[in-house]
Every structure is written in C-alpha cells, then in structure tokens.
C-alpha cells in the first residue's frame, strides 16, 4: 500500500519535473492538477498552504514544492522519493546537453517547439489561477480579495520579491488573528 503510493509519487513527480519549462510556478500548478484534481490526495486550500511554504523557504520552488508535497503524502520517504524524482530529469538532461550544446542551441525546430510550448505553459497557469481565484472569490471575504489584488500589483507592477510579500502577509495575518482573539471572536 505504502510502497504503491511511493511509486505513484515517484512517477508523477518524475513526469512533471521532466516537463516543467518556465520556472517553479509551473511545476507547482502541475502538481496541483495531479495531486488535488486527479488523485484527490490533497485538498485545494491545503495545497495553497503547501505552496506558501515552498515559496517562503530558500531554494528552488520546484524542489521545495516536491519536498513539501512528498512530506505531506508519505513523510520522510515521501521527501526522499520526490526529491530524487525532481532532480533526476534536469540532471540527466543537462549532462547530455553540455556535450551537444552548440547543435542543440542552433536547431530551429528545437527553438520553435520551445517557443510554442510557452503558450501552453501560460494556458496551464491561467487555468489553475482561474480555479483558485474563483475559490477565493466565492468566500466573499473583502480582506482576501484586497490581499489578492495588492499582492498581484506588488509582484507584477513593482517586481517586489515574493519573499517580502509572503512575510508581509504572514505579519498581517498574525496581527489580524491576535486582534480577533482579543475581541473574543475566535
């Protein structure tokens, strides 16, 4: 049973990692599709929390995302299995490419293929963001909507490092929770 699950984690993560062009956020959205929508092993809110942990820790988001999901699904061995599956594809690919770099770089078909895939990557992210944002809008919480808008403006328009956004939100959440506790709401 447990071995079955580890096997499933390994192959899903390996497959996702081999196709994550365009940075850590892509693997995070693909993980959401796989583990939340397909397998139902993690619920959507929990996934957002796990992504927040991956983002606010140092290191590559793809690796952090794999660790946090692996830990949640199968503890220590989950972490080991998902890390190996995440780094194996880039490790093999970079090793091969460093020998054939010049030929690879100047091939027009490789270039076009990669260019076209960007449209697909953008579409996957758009689809996941749409689902997640709809979940948040449905809660009808004005503060959440405000945070979502402000965080987008901060990261997109002003290129503020996501670490600062995460820290500010954490501080704001702490203040809000303490205030509500004092007023006896919670």
């Amino acid at each position, binding site marked *: 049973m447990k071995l079955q699950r580890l096997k499933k984690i390994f192959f899903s993560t390996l497959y996702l990692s081999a196709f994550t062009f365009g940075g850590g956020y892509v693997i995070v959205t693909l993980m959401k599709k796989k583990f939340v929508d397909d397998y139902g092993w993690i619920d959507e809110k929990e996934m957002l929390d796990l992504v927040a942990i991956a983002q606010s820790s140092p290191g590559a988001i793809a*690796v952090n995302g794999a660790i946090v999901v692996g830990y949640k699904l199968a503890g220590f061995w989950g972490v080991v299995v998902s890390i190996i599956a995440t780094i194996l594809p880039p490790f093999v690919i970079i090793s091969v490419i460093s020998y054939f770099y010049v030929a690879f770089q100047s091939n027009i*078909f490789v270039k076009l293929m990669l260019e076209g895939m960007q449209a697909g990557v953008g579409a996957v992210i758009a689809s996941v963001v749409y689902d997640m944002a709809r979940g948040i809008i449905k809660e009808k919480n004005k503060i959440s909507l405000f945070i979502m808008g402000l965080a987008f403006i901060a*990261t*997109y328009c002003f290129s503020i490092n996501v670490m600062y956004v995460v820290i500010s939100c954490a501080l704001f959440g702490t203040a809000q929770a303490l205030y509500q506790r004092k007023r006896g709401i919670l």
Partner: protein
Amino acid sequence: MILFQLFISFLKIGLFSFGGGYAALPLIQEQIVSFHQWLSLGEFTDLITISQMTPGPIAINSATFVGLKVAGFGGAIVATIGCILPSCIIVSALAYIYLKYRKMSLLQGILGSLRPAVVAMIATAGVAILNTAFFNNTATLHLDMVFLFVVAVGLLQYKKWNPIAVMVMCGVAKVVFYMIGV
C-alpha cells in the same frame, strides 16, 4: 578539496536564494564566476540559455553543469546535494510544523492571508510567461501564439486535457505553423 568547495558553494546558493527562479542568478554568478572562476561570463550566459530551454530549476541546472565541468560526475552529484540540502531541512521542518499545528487559530490567521497572495503570485508568473510568449521581446503581438493560448485554455477547461499533452501540442503546432508558412 575541489569537491568540498563545490559542496560549500552550492550549499550557500541553496541556503540564500529566496524567491525562486531568477532571484538566485546574482548569487550563482557571484559564487561560480567571480569567486571561484569555475565558469567564464560567456559560459555562464550559455548556462542561463540552456536553463531557459530545458526543464528544471536554474540552481540545480548550474550545480550539474558546473560540477560536471570542474570535477566530473562526482562533482555534479556533490554540487547538487549541496544545493538541495538546505531546502530539505527547512521545508521538511516547516511542513512538520504546519501539519501539526494548522488547527491553531493563529496559524489559521496567517494562512488565511497567505492564500490569496499565493494565487496572485502564481498569476504574476503566468502573465510574465504570456508576455514573452505573445511578444517574444518585440513590439508586435504574435497572433499565432495568442491563437495557441486560446485553444490550449479551451482544451484544459472544457475538454479536461492533460496539461502536459496541451503543452506538447502547442510546441508541435508552432513547428507545423512554421513549415506551412503561417
């Protein structure tokens, strides 16, 4: 000795690169170009290009590339382990705390304000990718890419296609467009 240096350098990169993606670039450059001179600036630029064209985080790609060049296969392994070790420890610890204490009202408050921000940050990454895809660093809008994007969204939302199949389909379609001269 060289293996130990590789390990320490990439341990630093793993430990101090916050924010993901290209936020790690200045740190990697400082360690492998300026300080140890394992790569020239030209080779480093090549490394960034390779990283853009292949899957995988840039820090891991650098570890493999530099490790191989400086100390062969063993070097690549040691550098990669150094790079992910800080993540393993810190992220596992945070995940443990989260799973144990998430029912607490304080942690609930923090997570409640983080969730909308996470959605916004993923959206930002998506818009940045689409900007590159649609304009490709020029001032003209590439309509073929917009078309591919719209079709891809449709396949994902209404036909529930597998995301990786959608991405590969977009890549193949772009090659086909080129061959038939669109």
